[in-house]
Structure formats: structure tokens, C-alpha cells
């Protein structure tokens, strides 16, 4: 069953990429983003666009500055300089509007372990201002899709990691955000669960959501529509996985990454 699912997901990538060429509206637009901490330049003139329906892979070794850039895009940190638009809003002036249009999920899954599945859903729906009716509808559909109806009233602490991860992702989508930021979402999860998680990502992308994802797994980089690789606070490469592999004469993304990362001077 699981294998079947994996194969099924391949055409989804195609749809996502086709969408991409059809309408080239950047939903994230970054020009000359600079972020300094004192003398340390974490982000050195980053410039890139992310398009609607794209799965944008944001790669880099530890300390390369990818988390900093992502936090700025999410409004968790403010940039030193540069022009940034997220979902059509200005990062400096319209942070509140951006927040309503983005979802965020980190490696830590961010569910409350001492609350039940339903209570977590209710809480997150509440802080995004969903009405009770909307929330009930979404909850029903979501639990059905994830096959979690039976554990609706179980504490999160009692669920396996993979379930928590899927649930956290679905909760990040609860308020219909246009863009979803995923910060190393598959850390510490087994390969099968990871693969299933990527099915969810494809599905969301196929529905027109834009996915911005950081990862350490190079096989995951292959699933992305486009990949940017950061080295020492700068973007060293940015293109589709296929183009990058050709450009660097590598068999897989791992080869591309190693060639670029080796030139790095910064480490954690």
C-alpha cells in the first residue's frame, strides 16, 4: 500500500511544476536581504523569488544562515536591510497581514502533548480566529483524511511521532494559508513516515499552496520544484534539482551539496 502511494505522488510533482510555469506570480519576493548580528553577517544580500504552488527547498549546512532567513520571512525576526514581500505584503509594514496568510511548522511539531488531538485543533483554530462551524468542518475532514478519528480524544503524548508530524502539518494548514514554512519538518523521523509526509506536502502544493522547506536530507531536495543552496550566508546555487545536477556534474543532490558546502568557511 505504502509503495503504491509513493509512486502515485510523482505526478503531483509534475502538476506543481506545470502550475509554476503557467502563472509566474512570485508569492515570496526577496531582494538584497541582509541580516547582521553585530559584525556577523548571517544573510549576505539574498535575492530570490518563490512562485505559487512551488515546493521551494532551502538548503545549507548548519550555520549557513537558512534558519535566519526563514525566521525573517515568518516575521520572527526583522531584517537589517533589503526588500521583502511575502504573499504580496511588505515584511516591514504589513507583518500582521502576512501572519494571517502563512503557516509554520518546525521540527518540534509544536503540538501540546498534554492536550488531546481535538483540543489542539480547537486551540489553533481559535488563535487564527476560525468560527466554531468552520473549525468543526475542518476538524472532521482533517481527521478523516489522516485516519485519526479514533484518537480524537487521546492525548498527543500517546501518539507515535509520525502521526504527530502529520497532524502538526495539517494544523499548520488549518487557516488556509497561502504559504507554508517548514523548518526541517522531517528531522528524526523514519524514511517511510518521511515519504508519507512528503505525500502531504505534494498534495498541499497541488492545491496551489506554496511550500518553503528547509531540510538536511538530500533525497528530499530531489522532491523540490526548485532548490536554493546557501553557503556562508549567500545563495551559492538556485535552480531545479535536474539543472543543478547537470551544472555540477553530479549524480544526485548530495553530490551537488557536497561540492558547494566544501567551499564553506563557516561552521557551527
Amino acid at each position, binding site marked *: 500500500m505504502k509503495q503504491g502511494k509513493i509512486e502515485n505522488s510523482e505526478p503531483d510533482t509534475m502538476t506543481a511544476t506545470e502550475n509554476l510555469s503557467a502563472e509566474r506570480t512570485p508569492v515570496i519576493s526577496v531582494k538584497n536581504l541582509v541580516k547582521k548580528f553585530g559584525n556577523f553577517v548571517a544573510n549576505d544580500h539574498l535575492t530570490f523569488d518563490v512562485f505559487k504552488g512551488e515546493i521551494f527547498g532551502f538548503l545549507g549546512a548548519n550555520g549557513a544562515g537558512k534558519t535566519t532567513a526563514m525566521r525573517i520571512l515568518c516575521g520572527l525576526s526583522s531584517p537589517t536591510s533589503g526588500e521583502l514581500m511575502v504573499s504580496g505584503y511588505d515584511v516591514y509594514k504589513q507583518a500582521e497581514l502576512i501572519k494571517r496568510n502563512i503557516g509554520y511548522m518546525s521540527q518540534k511539531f509544536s503540538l501540546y502533548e498534554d492536550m488531546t488531538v481535538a483540543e489542539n485543533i480547537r486551540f489553533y483554530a*481559535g*488563535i487564527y480566529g476560525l468560527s466554531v462551524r468552520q473549525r468543526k468542518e475542518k476538524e472532521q475532514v482533517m481527521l478523516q483524511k489522516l485516519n485519526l478519528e479514533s484518537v480524537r480524544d487521546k492525548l498527543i503524548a500517546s501518539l507515535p511521532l509520525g502521526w504527530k508530524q502529520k497532524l502538526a502539518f495539517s494544523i499548520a494548514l488549518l487557516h488556509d494559508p497561502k504559504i507554508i514554512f517548514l523548518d526541517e519538518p522531517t528531522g528524526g523521523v523514519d524514511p517511510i513516515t518521511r515519504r508519507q509526509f512528503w505525500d502531504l506536502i505534494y498534495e498541499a502544493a497541488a492545491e496551489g499552496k506554496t511550500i518553503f522547506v528547509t531540510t538536511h536530507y538530500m533525497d528530499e531536495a530531489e522532491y523540490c520544484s526548485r532548490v536554493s543552496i546557501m553557503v556562508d550566508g549567500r545563495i551559492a546555487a538556485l535552480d531545479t534539482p535536474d539543472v543543478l545536477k547537470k551544472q555540477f556534474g553530479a549524480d544526485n543532490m548530495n553530490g551537488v551539496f557536497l561540492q558547494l558546502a566544501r567551499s564553506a568557511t563557516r561552521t557551527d
Partner: protein
Amino acid sequence: MDRFLGFVKKEFFHIFRDRRTMIILFGIPIIQLMLFGTVITNEIKDARIAIYDQSKDEMTQEITSKLLSSGYFLLDRNLQTTNDIEAILKKGRVKEVLVFGRDFSRKLKREGKADIQIIADASDPNLAKMLTSYTTGIINDYIFKEMGDLHLPMQVEPEVRMVYNENLQSVYMFVPGIMAMILMLISAMMTSISITREKELGTMEILLVSPLRPVQIILGKVTPYLLLSIINAVLILGIGHFIFGVPIKGSWVLLMGESVLFILMALCLGIMISSLSKTQMVAMFISVIALMLPTILLSGFIFSIENMPLPLQVVSHIIPPRWFIVILRNIMLKGVGMAYVWKETLVLVFMALLFVTIAVKKFKTRLE
């Protein structure tokens, strides 16, 4: 508003579902009160004494009956010889022996001088101290009343300080002290832990990415603790007043007002601690080392500030509970109004503002 209520509800889930939190919130205050309360009421209740009365005149009889009717002492037996004294103390049941000298009342009336010897079992030094001071207190009281019109120096017991009252007052000190400590514990420590827990779990980031404003998040986090702290304040005052008979002479409204002010100050402190620490462990550590210990040791709760070495007296000024305890003591025991506690009140207000300013500043730099 709905969002906010949802947030508060979530916070109550965390509190009510964590047994340790519940114990700290409600178990500790009650246990502390019972502990201090019963230690105070029982320690010197029905202590067994023996009396060796060599005079057996009306005055010694009266003193004896005064002592026994005080409720603190129980006559174990009357002794007949000096030898019995050591024997009975050795047995350990009798904690104190009272020896009246010969011709007690005649000597006292004529010479203004009579002999009473109090022999206490000091294997428990605190108890012995209390017993002797209670005894001398009662005797002094009696002699003073009997002989008050005679202008003779009281030479039964040269110390004329009211040891008795002094002890009684320290009894009353415990309720304000426990109150300050518990409110500090719940408000400052529990809030700082609960906020840092969200940081540690990574949920804080999700909250910050959501449309909730940081102010809303913080208010949502502290509101439950504010409510629980107020309940606790009422509980402690209630138990202190109705069960242990600690007087509340001043106005209840002012008392509650000051308590709420102290709680708010402690909440600000908790928020500040949480903005300084990354993990729950650090928050807990700061709370215990920097808050609980000074509250217990330097606030005047257990050791009186006047008796501290000068440097510690200076340090005690920055301990918020010190001011709160003064306020409580003044309102509860002396029954004074705002006119007498405005200075301490201002200090607390100032501290609250200071803490919240530091917290906000820290929070902003973290976001940048």
C-alpha cells in the same frame, strides 16, 4: 476576545493536567500553613511540668494555678525533695521543673525579693527556651498585678521584657511570610516556567507566527496564574485568620488590593525571568536561587532584618517580599490604612514597572 479566552483555557489545561503543578499550586500553601500553624499551636500546649514548692503559701498556689490554667502547662506531679528533680527530668517526660524557694510570699512582700528556679530540659533547646519564657512571662504578669501598687523592684526575674508577647508576634509573622513566599512561588516561578516551556517545546514560535500579538500571548499565559494566585491569597488569609486566629485588624479590601499588586509584581518578575532564560531548568534555577531563598532568608519572614549584618540588610531592600511583608504586617496586625503603607506600595509598583520594562526590552532584542 474569543481568541484570548481560548488561550486562557489552553493554559488551564496545562495547569490542571500536570499533577506537579497542582501540588505546587495548592498542596504546598496548605501544607506550609498547616505545618507552621500546628507547630506554633502544639509545641507549647500541655507541656508537662513538675513543681517543687517549698513554701506552699497562697502566692505560690496562685502562681501554680495561673500556670496550669494557661493551657500551656500540665502538672505532671509535685516533688518533695531536691533529689527528685534530676530523676524526673532524666525520664524525659517532664520538660520543666519549677522550684519555689522558702517563704516565698513573705519574702516577696517584705524584701521585694523571692526565689523561683526554673529548670528546663534543654535537650530540645527551642522548646526549653519557649517554656521558660512562657513561664517567666506568666509569673511576671502575676507578680506585676499583685505587687503593682508596691513600688518595689521586681526581682523575681530581672528581665522585665515581654518575652511572652514577642513570641506571640512571631507566630503572626508566619502568615504574611508564607503568603509572600507562596505568591512569589506561583506567580513568578510558575509563570516563568510555563513561558519557557513553550519556548522549549517550540510552540512559542508557532504562537509568534500566528496573528496573536506578543502582548496577547503573555497576557494569556499569566492570566490563569493571576487568578490562581488570588485564590491562593484568599485561601492563606482565610486559613490564617479563621483557623489559626491571626488577626486582620485593617481593611480586607486594602489587604486584597495590596496582595493583587504583589501578585502583579511577581508576574512581571516571572515574565522577566522567562525572557532571560531559554529553558525551564534555567528559569527554575533562577527562581529558586534568586527568588525563593532570598524570600525565605532575607525578607524578614524567618530572620528579623534588624538582626542581620549590615550588608545583608542593604541587600534585603531589593527583595520584593520584604516590602510586602511589612505591608501585610501593618494592615493585619496593626490595622493601619494606606497612609502608613504608601511607601512600601510605591516600591512594589516601581519594581513591577522595572521588571516589565526589562522583559519587553529583552523580548524586542530577541526578535531583532
